């Protein structure tokens, strides 16, 4: 009798001990807490949208593809030398920050706009890498509706995904121009576009790239057009949590490596030749440092010395990723626009690998 009473008491105590494990962990040194966790796990957990053609989309065979997905693959290649060591989590716009903050995903590569309040420690407290796609908010409407400008939307219902910057920009722009409207908010992109296609709202608003991506999967893509109005700046950016600068740096320089490789003309096809050239020629100091033949860039970031050749060998440089997923090689056929290299007048610019 006595022993049974005692074991009853032991149960809640055990529970309490188990929960004690959720106190915060601290990083430090070149090996960060997050990277140690990822390496011990043997794969990267990457938060993506999963239903957005061109950025992250699940194919019929269950494989993921897209620009956001390629960032995850590049990161896995940098960490493990293997782009397949990624587990993808589909997140909607309302879940994404909580999933990142709780550590459910290591990296958020989900067409997320970098903003002050999301970056600030007193706001969402994220740490942003360089933007991988400079976008702007647009409005799509059926061509048959005759809607040409924002003014034509007066008094009409507009579909929008809740918890996005899009929702706020829409409110701001319409308020500026004193246009009354009805925002119909849905939790996921799929619901938003389903309601639009069913004709519940006369227009749908989101990032222009997302509208083009979704339109490409519509039954009749030619029946819908984007209004010329660009309502906002939307730099879409991979993000990690604040508080692990080592991990954030590794992500930042993985993205920069994609930009730098394009600038240097090192593609997926030419990486082997370039690497051989760098190894053979000690005078090519810039190239040797970039490809990890000499110097300690990898070690300083907590990554393998040859992380750049691994990344480029896996996904190619930024230009290849763009063309394949959203550019001429895809169904979206988006123009490079401001997403050109800085040398060509665009915004894609990697700080020096020095």
């Amino acid at each position, binding site marked *: 009798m*006595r022993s049974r*009473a005692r074991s*009853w*008491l032991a149960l*809640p*105590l055990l*529970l*309490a001990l188990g*929960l*004690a494990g*959720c*106190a*915060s962990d601290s990083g430090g040194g070149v090996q960060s807490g997050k990277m140690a966790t990822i390496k011990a796990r043997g794969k990267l957990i990457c938060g993506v949208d999963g239903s957005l053609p061109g950025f992250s989309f699940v194919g019929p065979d269950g494989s993921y593809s897209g620009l956001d997905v390629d960032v995850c693959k590049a990161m896995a290649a940098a960490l493990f030398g293997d782009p397949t060591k990624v587990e993808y989590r589909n997140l909607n*716009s*309302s879940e994404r*920050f*909580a999933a990142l*903050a709780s550590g459910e995903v290591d990296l958020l590569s989900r067409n997320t706009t970098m903003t002050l*309040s*999301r970056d600030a*420690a*007193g*706001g*969402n*407290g994220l740490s942003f890498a360089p933007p991988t796609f400079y976008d702007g908010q647009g409005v799509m409407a059926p061509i048959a509706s005759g809607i040409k400008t924002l003014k034509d939307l007066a008094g009409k*219902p507009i*579909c929008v995904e*809740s*918890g*996005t910057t899009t*929702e*706020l920009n*829409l*409110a*701001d722009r*319409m*308020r500026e121009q004193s246009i009354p*409207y*009805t*925002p*119909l*908010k*849905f*939790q996921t992109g799929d*619901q938003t576009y*389903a*309601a639009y296609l*069913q*004709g*519940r709202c006369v227009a749908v608003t989101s990032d222009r790239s997302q509208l083009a991506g979704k339109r490409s999967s519509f039954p009749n893509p030619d029946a819908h057009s984007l209004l010329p109005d660009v309502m906002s700046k939307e730099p879409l950016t991979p993000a990690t949590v*604040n*508080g692990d600068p080592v991990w954030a740096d590794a992500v930042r320089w993985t993205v920069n490596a994609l930009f730098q490789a394009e600038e240097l003309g090192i593609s997926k096809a030419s990486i082997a030749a370039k690497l051989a050239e760098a190894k053979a020629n000690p005078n090519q100091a810039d190239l040797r440092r970039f490809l990890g033949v000499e110097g300690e860039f990898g070690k300083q970031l907590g990554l393998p010395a040859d992380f750049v050749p691994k990344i480029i060998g896996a996904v190619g440089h930024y230009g290849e990723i763009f063309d394949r997923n959203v550019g001429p090689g895809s169904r979206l056929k988006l123009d490079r626009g401001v997403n050109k290299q800085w040398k060509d007048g665009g915004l894609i610019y990697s700080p020096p690998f020095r």
Partner: protein
Amino acid sequence: MPWWRNRVVLPWVIQAAVALTVLVLIAFLLGNLIRNLTAAGLLLSWNWLGQPAGFDIAETLLPFDASQPYWRGLAAGLVNTLRVVLAGLVGSTLLGTLLGMASFSSNGLLRGLTRAYVEIVRNIPLLLQLVFWYFVVFLSLPNGTAAIQLPGVVLAKSGLYLAWFGEGLRWLGPYLVNGVWQAPLRLSVEFGALLTGLVAYSAAFIAEVVRGGIAAVAKGQWEAASSLGLSWFQTLRQVVLPQALRVIVPGLNTQYISLAKNSALAVAVGYTDLYSVAETTLNQTGRAVEVVLLLLAAYLVLDLFISLVMNGLNRLVQIRER
């Protein structure tokens, strides 16, 4: 006898130990939360409630626009929740009672249909049913002149238009202006789909509660009533239901609370309820802990209030010993 064998003392000691463990656990978890929030530079703060919300809400009883503060938006969301919950409680009680009564009908077809309805509806997840009502039923409604027109009611994709008192308390039905319906009372299809889904779902459970209550009344009561020459409906209304109520009311309480909580699924069909506003607020402010605490408190108070009312009703219908 030592104290640990004492049947008077022992239960108290065990209960005190369990209570202490729970308190320590709660204190530990709260301490952990506050410590980690402090470490992240995020102490609980409520200042953001007074800042401009910056987002709009499609339909509100409480007037709201983007320049008003967050608390006002949350209040508008709460009013929207109360609106659908109240309408849902009335609707599901009426439909559920009718269905529960029908399952005792002498008409076999009616009985069979009622059983089929209950079994189908309560075995399909509510979220699925809401999505069905919204995307398949309500969004398939036609617009303009093709809209479904019933006396005093027009069902269109742009909304549900009902006759109501117009200017000067004149009874006014829906009418068309340039191909767009107008009416004194307009409900959105989002509200319509959510309300229909909640009523259809809860009514199936309430029907079972009512059926159980009626079945609990002794068979002799039915026989006695019919020997007095009362009809089936009179028997049910005058003899059986008053006695069944004291079994039905506690069960109804549970169903009402479920309905209030289920209303948070509104976000799936684009109706802006408290949960939907809270979600947007959480995303804009990053104040996850505060917003979730507010949500918890709001639904807790709402459900406790429903319980309070239902417990009062329960006392009213209990047998008073004479």
